[in-house]
């Protein structure tokens, strides 16, 4: 299991890997917003958490379609399907590696973008924390979508379209927890606990669904 994790990490860091592209996309998407809404700092700080969350959501969808397609293209997927190792576990490890390589850098870059959005320190901390807890859920859902679209030649866009509606709950609770941390009357913990629950839920459902889809898709 560890060997698969290390291999996937190596692949995403080596040339052509998606780790840098994800962060770059995230930064660019968030940086474009002030040009659209104008440099009104009060407005920016109000919409900041939402923008950072949406940017992170889009950026973490970027490399997802290659999660299984790359394995399928060179035949590795066949060998993984044949093993006695439960496929669910294989998928889970691949998700974790993918998140560590592409999701974690987004979390680490988010405070910097928070500054650009003129968010205060508490809001930045809250967004970073919610992203840390919530972004794995996106990867887990995405794994299921990627598995469904694995045999399609141009599945990349389809994966995004399939997954985006499913990530809406993650977005809702992530953003509402971030706002709750800033605005006094709303409590922070309930939406945050919900977010954590969603992530745990998808950590089970996502790999299960992905494994099922991969078995059904093999030909």
């Amino acid at each position, binding site marked *: 299991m560890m060997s698969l994790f290390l291999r996937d990490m190596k692949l995403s860091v080596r*040339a*052509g890997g998606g780790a*840098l*592209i994800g962060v*770059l996309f995230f*930064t*660019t998407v968030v*940086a474009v917003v*002030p*040009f659209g809404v104008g*440099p009104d*700092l009060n407005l*920016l700080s109000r919409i900041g958490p939402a923008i950072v969350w949406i940017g992170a959501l889009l950026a973490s969808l970027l490399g997802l379609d290659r999660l299984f397609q790359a394995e399928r293209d060179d035949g590795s997927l066949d060998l993984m399907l044949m093993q006695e190792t439960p496929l669910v576990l294989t998928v889970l490890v691949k998700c974790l590696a993918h998140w560590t390589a592409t999701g974690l850098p987004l979390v680490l870059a988010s405070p910097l973008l928070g*500054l*650009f959005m*003129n968010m205060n320190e508490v809001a930045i901390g809250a967004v970073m924390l919610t992203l840390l807890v919530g972004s794995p859920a996106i990867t887990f859902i995405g794994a299921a979508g990627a598995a469904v679209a694995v045999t399609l030649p141009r599945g990349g866009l389809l994966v995004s379209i399939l997954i985006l509606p499913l990530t809406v709950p993650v977005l809702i609770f992530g953003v509402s927890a971030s706002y709750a941390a800033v605005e006094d009357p709303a409590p922070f913990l309930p939406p945050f606990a919900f977010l954590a629950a969603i992530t745990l839920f998808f950590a089970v459902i996502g790999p299960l669904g992905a494994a099922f889809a991969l078995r059904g898709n093999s030909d």
Partner: protein
Amino acid sequence: MSEPIPAIKKFSDLANPTVFLGLTARIVPFLAVATALLFAVGLYLSFTTEGDYQQGETVRIMYVHVPAAWLSMMCYSIMAASALGTLVWRHPLADVSAKAAAPLGAGFTFLALITGSLWGKPMWGTWWEWDARLTSVFVLFLMYLGLIALMRAFDDPARAARVSAVLILIGFVNIPIIKFSVEWWNTLHQPASVMRMGGSAIDPEFLRPLLVMAAAFTLLFFTLHFLAIRNEIWRRRVSAQRRLAARMANREA
């Protein structure tokens, strides 16, 4: 590497990577020592000179902020010159130079943004402001990162060189925008004060540490750039020899 170093007779000899490696081996120690000395003097000066009566202690941030910002633009200009060298004269080391400079440029631009932010908080009361100067420097930072990603994405260095050279030249539009943004638009950022017509507008008390630090940062950049070019040449040799090794293994078998 104990190979004899061929003598440099004309400028075009620099195109020979072996000659360049020999030159690097001779020059870099001096550059490194000079950089260290200048930094020692510069740091001493920056912490002993007096604070500004308006800006107080924070004026010391200028001694790292301005050199970093200056380097971020100089590095891009060097990359643009290298890009011209690649496209027009097909100088074999030009694209190596551009590729080696990109991460350095990104690093110094990042430093300029960070220190600018740290300066802006006590002075303007905000970490970041979407004004013309700051935005254009941020765009420069994104361009550096994009170029790094682009250069890494190609397998074939020759193709990567041409494509990224075109992009570098297109992006060069940004440099004059950064330079003159403070004059063209009415912004929060203060206008240039060191280099302008009719002499510097800055008190010699601040000018001295600033110039020393700028020189130190510039030398640091050149030291690192030389070393990065050397690394890139080695990287290409490794890659060429690996291909050779693969071919030789075939012949033996």
